[in-house]
């Protein structure tokens, strides 16, 4: 088992208050890694080790929702066709999916490499499964992701983009499950399948049959979205799927009245349902509110560049900066705490300034960054200089 020291590493230590202003205090210390875990922190010189030159140690990032199959990323520039709705985009996929398949291995690899360079060690990857492409995109994604298991963990979601019922995708979804898909995906049971109850029933049945978690993309607006969300909660309860359900996008949470928001937040929290968001800055879902109500929130880029949209960067630090800017989280503590949306809840300090991470026995998946604090990293989008996955360096600038 490997054992080594990281020397001169910067760790956040606490908050220092001075006339209303808060500053993050850090210390330069040494930290020992044994196997895939942190084992001890020691201020005294351990002798041999990797000199981190005062770089700040922070938890590595999680990309919680990204389509890695039907992408233009890494290929020639393509803008989107003008003025098409969801159904128009789906129509495009009939010719587009087979056309894009030959280029997919290279482009999927480029997305994964990009995400590693941006500090991610976990990817929740989305992949079309439908009558157009069958499980070909799924197989291709799986094969490629498997070559990166020394650098990250992943979950691959079989995603019935064209509507589970609408496009008769159930047999293909079943096939993907047989082939080992990690998560049962779903999409807009009302808007696309026009049958909220049966669409969700079929999704959860499949999940129960194969004992897999569920990840449903919900782009339905306001009361319809809220209705579907409540039915997802019902099913989660009925199937005993607490802690195993994610709702992606969940745009209906934006702009709803405080009473409804409170009620749905309570349910989502009680059922331990995760909300994953790409943070539409112009009409964001109320992330800080959800967080305070005990709802798990995770961030994802959704798409980098494809026939739906062309603006994704894969840079989660930038996304955190946008979240902070959007919700006016500009003070030191709020900025630092924003980090948790991209780390599965981990921050070096809690809101009171107590150190929570790293502790011995935490998995040594982390990044080194050229910043004086998490707050600075996020506000100023400082560069990542190295990424470690389970105690091993997988990227350095």
């Amino acid at each position: 088992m490997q054992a080594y020291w990281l020397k001169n590493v910067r760790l956040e230590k606490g908050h220092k208050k001075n006339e209303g202003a808060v500053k993050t205090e850090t210390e330069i210390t040494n930290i020992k890694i044994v196997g895939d875990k942190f084992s001890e922190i020691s201020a005294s010189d351990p002798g041999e080790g990797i000199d981190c030159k005062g770089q700040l140690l922070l938890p590595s990032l999680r990309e919680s929702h990204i389509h890695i199959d039907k992408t233009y990323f890494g290929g020639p520039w393509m803008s989107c066709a003008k003025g098409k709705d969801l159904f128009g985009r789906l129509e495009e996929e009939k010719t587009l999916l087979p056309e894009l398949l030959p280029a997919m291995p290279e482009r999927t690899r480029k997305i994964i490499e990009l995400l590693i360079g941006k500090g991610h060690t976990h990817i929740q990857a989305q992949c079309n499964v439908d009558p157009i492409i069958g499980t070909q995109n799924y197989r291709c994604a799986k094969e490629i992701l498997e070559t990166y298991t020394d650098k990250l963990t992943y979950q691959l979601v079989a995603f019935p983009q064209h509507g589970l019922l609408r496009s008769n995708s159930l047999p293909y979804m079943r096939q993907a499950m047989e082939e080992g898909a990690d998560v049962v995906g779903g999409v807009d049971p009302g808007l696309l399948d026009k049958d909220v109850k049966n669409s969700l029933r079929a999704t959860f049945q499949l999940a129960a049959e194969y004992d897999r978690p569920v990840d449903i993309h919900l782009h339905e607006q306001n009361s319809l979205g809220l209705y579907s969300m409540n039915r997802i909660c019902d099913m989660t309860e009925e199937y005993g799927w607490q802690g195993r359900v994610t709702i992606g996008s969940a745009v209906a949470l934006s702009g709803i009245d405080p009473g409804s928001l409170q009620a749905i937040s309570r349910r989502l929290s009680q059922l331990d349902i995760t909300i994953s968001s790409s943070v539409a800055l112009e009409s964001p879902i109320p992330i800080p509110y959800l967080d305070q109500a005990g709802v798990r929130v995770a961030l994802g880029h959704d798409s980098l560049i494809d026939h739906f949209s062309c603006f994704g960067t894969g840079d989660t630090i930038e996304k955190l900066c946008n979240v902070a800017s959007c919700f006016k989280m500009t003070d030191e503590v709020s900025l630092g705490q924003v980090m948790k949306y991209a780390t599965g809840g981990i921050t070096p300090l809690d809101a009171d300034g107590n150190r929570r991470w790293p502790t011995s026995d935490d998995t040594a998946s982390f990044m080194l960054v050229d910043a004086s604090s998490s707050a600075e990293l996020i506000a100023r989008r400082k560069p990542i200089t190295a990424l470690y996955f389970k105690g091993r360096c997988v990227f350095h600038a």
Partner: protein
Amino acid sequence: MRKVLKNVRLETGFQEADLGRVETITALFDITVEGGRIIGLQLAGYAENEGGAVLDLGGMLALPRLVDSHVHIDKTYLTMDFHSTQPTKNIEERLELEAKDLIKMRDSVETRSRAAIELLLAKGTTKLRHHVNVDPYCELKNLEGSLAALRSFKGIDFETVAFPQHGLLRKQCQPLLREAMKMGADLIGGIDPGGLDKDVEGSLKATFDLANEFGAGIDMHLHERGAVGLYTMERLCDLAQARDMRGMITISHGFALMDANPAQLEAMAGRFRDLGIGITSTYPPDRRIPVEQLKRLGVPVKFGCDGIYDSWGPFGTGDVLEKVKFYCMFNKLSDEISLAQALGLATEGVTPLDEQGRRLWPKLGDPADFVFLRASCSAEVVARLPQREAVMSGGTMVYQNVK
């Protein structure tokens, strides 16, 4: 001295593509530059070699110079230790905190301003309008420092707005503003005549009096929302008309335009158009003024970065193109032509092609001001924000990316 820029990618038109998409057509050109202007423009390989330096751009795309039409470079924390933002209860408290900063930071204005300009330049901006604090705390120190910084850069064109951040009447800044104009400021600034000065008519009149005294234009921050904001705009138009200041006035932010109903917006935009009043937006996601409608109604709209990391907020990249990207994202403009046209928000309206794909830029006689990037077209640049590889101003390379 004559120089030839070889293998420069320029946009030449649009063409239809599959799935109802549109693509930009480009071609490689050789551009001959002399005396800071374009004197030759030919397809690559056809330029006559008449001596002079040759610079091979290797197929990089050229775009017009980027213009940041509203930026504060004097207050930035760049070059200092990290400062997050101290929470305050209201604008008065925020101003008090800033006042302390201004006093503390009086002697580092030039250094910090330089860092801000370097950041802007690295993003391709070679023309900027900056608002510099003029108030009892920094007095004229911020003006002195930022002017010294700006003048030390070659190829940066700038306009300086003397900005009474703490309120023109509220802090009786007229004598200081007068000094500022004598020291080289170009425009009279202003801020929320109702919200800060609590005297819409008096504050506007004092602003216009100062402008008229120096024959200068006005660029006023108007953050006020709703009816007060719209009322202030009306009074501002009245004065612009009475004092015959056509084309000399800019309203920055103009958030109240978000609150105008369609009839009000049309009427207001009509007045702006007739009086040549421009709107500059920093396009914050939560305060998006109706840019598209304003443009359609004939009002010139420009973008700027606003503060780059100061006591008002810890964010800011100095990239005016990022503002354009956000504009496209928020308005779901992801088709080729919309993306390409949006570029104009960061170039004072200059785009390589018009909406029909006719070539507008560059033309013979245009200043040799370019941003060079590794990209296929303007639309790609707006959507993907590639690095700025090189920046030319007046025929001289003023920035080159070494990363």
